[in-house]
């Protein structure tokens, strides 16, 4: 009997523990978005999520930005920046769960992918929204940007205006070009590079003759450079790309395995000659070698000011560059970086107006990009100079809006934006610009093909290239490449008819 009071004491102890453990936890809630104190009569808050390096001093900058925004447009920006590494997963959760937000960053094939999001209803169609709330957007941005953003006829995101064309070529370290007397200005083909690479291979044991911006992309970029001269890309990416031949009026879609095979074999030839680093298969991250300037030359996109950019990037050496292919605008080039309005947004009109501001209001755009003048950066002879450790220097205009509105940063070339825009406008544009393949009907095939292509990377490197390539071809056929091709063809035909091209 005497023990019994103790039992109830135990019970109440347990209940108490439970309560102690469970109760206060809900209260740890931060009051982050409690906007009760805002005198917000007309000011609408836009929650904008983008990718980049989070900035510790963001609050101070946003305060300044919001002063201007409220005054000029009656808007308030609630910006959230997530790391590139976590952006995809975070956005996937936010979007899938239907969480409320207004604008997010989206790309064709890198982060928060555009087309899958459109087909799962994550983004709003913007045509009417733009016309009613932000007609100015149509004037500041060229028409082809909107055309390329269309999916089944509707615009679901506003592309950020930046470099749109591809023009493949090589950049070479100037000191080495001079040392070996290489006639770089007259390089027209890949073969023309051989004497230079031979010299590096034989005389500079510490250097690699040629690389790419990332070693893993080297083969795909090389094949793309070869293909771009005679073919237009229609759909897919990397080794599962689909093309039409230039000058082919019947617009026959194919994946041209025989042509691609030839180019991949050629890549293997470069490897066999010792121009490409021998550990290419296992090397995943060669950024340390790039920044140390260990590549004597590099395959890449040739653009105005490219030498200066490469100098900053790769060890501070001077570089020269030469283009092998003409500037060319791919069918979906503008989708590399875009901003979309969420279908969960409560005030899409404000969201589209905010996108408009980022593309047209130079002052606000630059403040968000570089911070506050005198605090985060200084202006020297018209160039932005970062104040180190000041807590804010986003410097990724291409993620926010119109890159060509950005101030020039120290080390950039005067007039670089004008020149780039000029080439953008004069470059050859793909005849099927704006055609966007909807992969929904063949998603099963698509999933299987992407698995196969990553298994058969860097084929040319292996001695038994022939057998491996045939294996690759068989597996692609098993994965349904023909069905995929037929689907591309039928969608393309429908598009051509609709656009009066066939």
């Amino acid at each position, binding site marked *: 009997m005497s*023990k019994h009071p*103790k*039992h109830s004491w*135990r*019970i109440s102890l347990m209940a108490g523990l439970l309560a102690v*453990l*469970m109760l206060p*936890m*809900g209260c*740890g*809630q*931060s009051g*982050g978005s409690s906007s009760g104190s805002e005198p917000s009569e007309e000011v609408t808050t836009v929650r904008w999520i983008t990718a980049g*390096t*989070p900035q*510790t001093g963001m609050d101070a900058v946003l305060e300044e930005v919001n002063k201007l925004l409220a005054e000029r447009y009656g808007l308030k920006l609630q910006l959230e920046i*997530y*790391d*590139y*590494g*976590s*952006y995809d*997963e*975070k956005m996937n*959760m936010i979007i*899938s*769960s*239907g*969480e409320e937000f207004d604008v997010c960053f989206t*790309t064709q*094939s*890198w*982060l928060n992918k555009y087309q899958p999001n459109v087909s799962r209803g994550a983004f709003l169609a913007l045509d009417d929204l733009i016309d009613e709330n932000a007609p100015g957007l149509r004037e500041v941005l060229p028409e082809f940007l909107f055309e390329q953003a269309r999916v089944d006829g509707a615009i679901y995101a506003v592309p950020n205006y*930046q*470099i749109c064309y*591809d023009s493949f070529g090589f950049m070479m370290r100037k000191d080495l070009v001079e040392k070996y007397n290489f006639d770089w200005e007259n390089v027209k083909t890949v073969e023309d590079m051989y004497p230079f690479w031979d010299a590096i291979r034989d005389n500079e044991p510490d250097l690699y003759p040629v690389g790419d*911006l*990332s070693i*893993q*992309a080297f083969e*795909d970029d090389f094949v*793309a450079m070869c293909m771009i001269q005679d073919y237009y890309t229609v759909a897919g990416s990397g080794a599962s790309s689909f093309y039409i031949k230039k000058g082919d009026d019947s617009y026959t879609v194919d994946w041209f395995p025989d042509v691609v095979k030839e180019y991949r074999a050629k890549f293997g030839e470069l490897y066999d000659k010792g121009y490409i680093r021998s550990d290419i298969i296992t090397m*995943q*991250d*060669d*950024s*340390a*070698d*790039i*920044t*140390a300037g260990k590549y004597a030359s590099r395959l890449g*996109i040739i653009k105005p000011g490219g030498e200066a950019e490469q100098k*900053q*990037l*790769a060890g501070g050496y001077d570089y020269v560059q030469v283009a092998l292919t003409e500037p060319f605008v791919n069918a979906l*080039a*503008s989708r*590399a*970086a875009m901003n979309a309005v969420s279908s969960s947004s409560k005030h899409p009109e404000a969201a589209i107006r905010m996108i408009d501001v980022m593309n047209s209001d130079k002052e606000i755009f630059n403040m968000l990009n570089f911070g506050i003048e005198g605090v985060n950066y200084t202006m020297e002879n018209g160039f932005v100079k970062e104040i180190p450790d000041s807590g804010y220097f986003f410097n990724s205009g*291409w993620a926010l809006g119109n890159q060509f509105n950005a101030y020039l940063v120290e080390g950039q070339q005067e007039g670089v934006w004008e020149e780039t825009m000029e080439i953008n406008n004069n470059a050859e544009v793909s005849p099927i610009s704006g055609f966007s393949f909807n992969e929904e009907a063949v998603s099963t095939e698509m999933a299987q093909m992407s698995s196969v292509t990553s298994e058969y990377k860097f084929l040319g490197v292996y001695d038994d290239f022939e057998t491996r390539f045939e294996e690759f071809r068989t597996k692609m056929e098993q994965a349904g490449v023909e069905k995929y091709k037929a689907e591309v063809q039928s969608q393309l035909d429908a598009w051509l008819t609709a656009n009066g091209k066939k």
Partner: protein
Amino acid sequence: MNAAMNNIKKHPQYTINIISLIYSALCLLPFLLVLSASFTNEHALSANGFRLLPSEFDLTAYEYIFKSPEKILRSYGVTIFVTAATVAGGLLFMSMIGYTLARTNCRFARPLSFYVFFTLLFSGGMVPSYILMTQVLDWKNTYAVMIVPSLVYAFHVIMIRTFFQKLPPALFESAKIDGANEFLIFFRIALPLSVPVLTTVAFFTAMSKWNDWQTGLLYITQEDMEPLQYMLYRIEQNIQSLLTALSQGGGITVDVRDIPGQNLLMAMAVVAAGPMLVVFPFFQKYFISGLTVGAVKG
């Protein structure tokens, strides 16, 4: 051969020590590689590979991590608090249900075991959990989201149950005859007898909580609430993601220089693992000197 066998029989302690020494060396060497890499200059690391001694001594990685020490200390604090709270609460709840499952007089032990076990196999994926946490419970940026969902882990419940099952039933029977109820038996007899297994589970819970980056990734956006491992995870993922961006080519203009060096990755691994290795001997004290049933009975 025979002589060797004899040797083993005569000196089992030596044999155990030799085997353990070799095994320990195998565990230690790679760890030293990581440590050395974290003190190596980034370029030297890519040129010379990993060495047991840094080929070019350099503190940049640690300088970078401790650039704002209050931030890293804050993360340590968050992780320690979350870990401690999860261990304390989890241990209580898990041993309570583990005891119930182990009792032979419990009539619903089988269906309940199944109920517990089922959660190990089936899950609804991240999306429904995310909806539950953010929209139903509104737990984004709270400590609750880092603690409460991980209090009960079926695997550990089953471990505890298995241990309780091995306690001699006679112990419980005699307590019953003395008039003790189940609460009393649990707190007075079962708990004290299971210190070794509880310590193990405590340590395992602590370790999984310590290494948990996913909760931080999904539910914590406020910088001063970021757990430590999430920071390591971000460095790892940034490398991956920036490389993907580069391999896409075209319009995306990320800077190669933004890619964190491998030395930073290694330094972060050292910073993240260090404290747990220091804490471990504290746990060890409790299961190394294990209790025996006889000792308690006597």
